[in-house]
């Protein structure tokens, strides 16, 4: 998933404005949005489509979560509880663990007035596999293919859905994946009425919705705004917000002005400077929430120097985690060194690496490089990344490693990274679905390290890191039925990864949402899901 970040010029401009704001008299809220309407300022220019079978962007997930219901879902007010029944009232797993039978819940209705049945679920999941769009891997990893969906995803009647898996996967793994955007159930009849050239309604669902969630899409203007209205057929508890309007506001300083003026209820993309500026404003509050995005650097193991474990260890000890967290990343990121974000099943809090230049220097000498070496760091053109790169440049320089920052656009940096042509790459990674395998399967899994394998989706492969034993352990974890045992497997895997991998995971993202004091229960989705407007009150 990608998100745009403002350019340096814009940030400088924003900083100037912030300075002006701080020196000016406090603005007083002069407007107020209606009590049953939620108005949000946010960057939403990442939305390409809102078809749940294709949508794979942050803002698109925000819409889908409020418009479509999956078979199982997270309670926004208790995310730690994990998946709960939603369109599926219950499920049973076959003795051999390869078949899950869902019994549909009663009373769910699409916006069209059509009742939600198992046939709709069958259609939606089959459709996602058949369309074969980017997020389809979330489902096809269970063995579903366009050729076999008619046998593997079956609704024998309107109340029952059967999923036949190619292995006895952990139920938690399968159900966690079904909570993702791609698991949203669409109204088969309505969608197929809008089918064009056999696209199963893909073009129509790009900017229309046909779900059974609390809201329906009233309008979407790309790069401008979207509006959600209450789904009149929704049978659950009626949300307090009858209408949700999200405006695309690129600039943090502009979002802040709107919030202070009372023109919006929530501002979702404030810079640390603007968040700090709100401390003196009595009418608004800032709510921190841990998200799933991790910031890390990794070393290409094709490079002879970087393939030396002592060198990597030295560089990990020469990284100033705390210094960065307390300065330019303050409030935006927290130090986190394991590949599973906090709040995920199996997540650990271990932070074995702290800045220790003496130890780093000793390790480098031990590795045979007492005078250091030269290295390049590929960095995307975003201020926080450049700041981190400069910090690495500084601390690595103190142990003799001369690092050169190679700054490029996201696409340029990604191309180099995928082609295994980098030396050090400074990157970010967000989970694709709320199961530990989403990160274990990319950081700690690489069954074929050859160039010919072309496994560009695996971060371990991108760094040419062969890890046959850990790959086996990762595979073993996805078929472990005992959830507690499974969680323990991921804990062990992460500790081994931290000690031996050419990855230095540094930080986990904190999202800071500023809102009017009266806004309650706004949950951006934590590390596992997206925003839930239906829970909001004000």
């Amino acid at each position, binding site marked *: *998933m990608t998100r745009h970040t403002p350019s340096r010029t814009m940030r400088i401009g924003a900083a100037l404005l912030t300075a002006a704001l701080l020196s000016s008299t406090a603005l007083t809220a002069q407007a107020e949005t209606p009590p049953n309407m939620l108005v949000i300022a946010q960057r939403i220019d990442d939305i390409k489509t809102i078809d749940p079978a294709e949508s794979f962007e942050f803002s698109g997930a925000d819409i889908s979560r409020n418009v479509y219901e999956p078979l199982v879902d997270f309670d926004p007010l208790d995310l730690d509880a994990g998946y709960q029944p939603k369109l599926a009232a219950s499920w049973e797993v076959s003795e051999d663990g390869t078949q899950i039978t869902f019994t549909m819940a009663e009373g769910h209705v699409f916006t069209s007035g059509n009742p939600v049945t198992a046939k709709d679920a069958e259609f939606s999941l089959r459709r996602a596999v058949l369309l074969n769009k980017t997020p389809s891997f979330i489902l096809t990893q269970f063995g579903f293919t366009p050729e076999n969906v008619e046998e593997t995803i079956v609704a024998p009647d309107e109340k029952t859905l059967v999923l036949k898996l190619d292995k006895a996967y952990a139920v938690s793994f399968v159900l966690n994946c079904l909570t993702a955007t791609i698991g949203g159930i669409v109204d088969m009849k309505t969608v197929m009425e809008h089918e064009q050239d056999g696209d199963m309604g893909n073009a129509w669902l790009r*900017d229309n919705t046909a779900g059974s969630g609390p809201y329906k899409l009233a309008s979407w203007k790309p790069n401008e705004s979207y509006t959600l209205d209450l789904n009149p057929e929704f049978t659950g508890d009626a949300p307090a917000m009858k209408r949700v309007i999200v405006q695309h506001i690129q600039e943090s300083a502009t979002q802040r002005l709107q919030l202070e*003026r009372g023109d919006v209820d929530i501002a979702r993309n404030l810079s640390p400077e603007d968040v700090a500026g709100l401390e003196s404003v009595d009418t608004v509050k800032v709510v921190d929430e841990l998200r799933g995005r991790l910031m890390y650097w990794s070393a290409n193991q094709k490079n002879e120097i970087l393939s030396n474990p002592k060198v990597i260890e030295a560089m990990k000890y020469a990284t100033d985690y705390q210094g960065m967290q307390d300065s330019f990343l303050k409030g935006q990121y927290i130090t986190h060194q394991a590949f599973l974000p906090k709040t995920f099943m199996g997540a650990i809090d271990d932070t074995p690496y702290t800045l220790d230049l003496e130890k780093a220097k000793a390790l480098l000498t031990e590795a045979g490089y007492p005078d250091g070496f030269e290295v390049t760091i590929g960095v995307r053109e975003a201020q926080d990344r450049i700041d981190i790169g400069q910090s690495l440049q500084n601390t690595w320089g103190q142990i003799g490693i001369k690092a050169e920052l190679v700054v490029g656009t996201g696409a340029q940096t990604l191309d180099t990274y995928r082609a295994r042509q980098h030396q050090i790459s400074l990157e970010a990674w967000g989970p694709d679905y709320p199961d530990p395998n989403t990160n274990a399967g990319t950081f700690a899994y690489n069954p074929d390290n050859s160039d010919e394998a072309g496994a560009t989706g695996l971060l371990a492969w991108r760094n040419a890191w062969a890890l046959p034993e850990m790959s086996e352990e990762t595979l073993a974890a996805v078929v472990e039925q005992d959830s507690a045992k499974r969680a323990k497997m991921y804990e062990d895997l992460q500790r081994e990864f931290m000690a031996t991998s050419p990855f230095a995971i540094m930080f986990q993202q904190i999202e800071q949402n500023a809102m009017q004091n009266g806004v309650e229960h706004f949950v951006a989705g934590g590390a596992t899901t997206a925003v839930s407007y239906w829970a909001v009150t004000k």
Partner: protein
Amino acid sequence: MTHQTTNTGGGRAAPSFPPNWLKKTVSLAFTVAITLLGLLFVTFMIGRVMPIDPVLAVIGERASQAQYDQVYLELGLDKPLIVQFGIYVGDVLQGDFGTSIRTGKPVAEDIARVFPATLELATLGTLLGVVLGVPLGVLAAVYRGSWIDQLSRLIGLVGYSMPIFWLGMMGLLIFYGILGWVAGPGRLGVFYEGLVPTRTGLLLVDAIIAGDWDVFKDALSHIILPACLLGYFSLAYISRMTRSFMLEQLNSEYVITARVKGLSEWNVVWRHAFRNIAIQLITVIALAYANLLEGSVLTEIIFAWPGIGSYITTSLLSNDMASVLGGTVVIGTIFVCLNILSDLLYRFFDPRAKS
């Protein structure tokens, strides 16, 4: 008796075929077509030779190799560059600019949506720039060295040296944030969205057509600040150029003669000197307008104004080349059209140009 008449040049020349106007029109059309094709070619090639992968822009970094290969073929990237360009031009001639990978909509539809926003803003900005800039420039020239001239220079200096981004931010802070005189970012308040049907895409015009004065007032309240900002930059440019043109005229002998003849200063300045700079001013104003129509990216970003400038910029950053190319064609066409219009006005105002 027979009379033989020979045309020795003293009579009227027989009309040539094809007529001159047709020749000129064909020549003009040819020039325009070549210009646009060249522009398209350069933009297309830059997009293709950039060291970034257009397939990844479509499918994202998580897609499988099979999905990558499928999109690679769908985009026609397996064909030679020149063939790809030929296919693109063929599609454009049929009005198909491709589909934006960022919005998932046809580029033509996207441009039809964003261009009116820029047109409305740029037109209002240019109007403000002309209405205020031309008289200021004339007065600065007439009262050279006076406080008016100093003011004109100061405005010009600030206009040239201040970053538009900073001025925009300050404008929002003061007039929206502190004083509350104008509405905030965007084209329309959220409560007015969808109240008037879209006919021209120009919100002010659509509101007038619908007779909805509440929407008109709200749209005006949103556009006035960015339009004033753009108008200010036009004003700075136009007033400086006007002053410079006028100074040249006011030092001419015919102006001295006119004064000696006892003509009033008003007549000397406005009926003689100003009339002679009108031709040059047309080019200046056309260029200023074209620059604003090109899309003032930063202004559009600060004011969350959904115009073509921010559309093309965001598309470029997302490697959405179909949108970039579509936008480039539109802007190129505007430049060419404004140049032609400027030429035509030249001919209209300057009898020498007709010959």
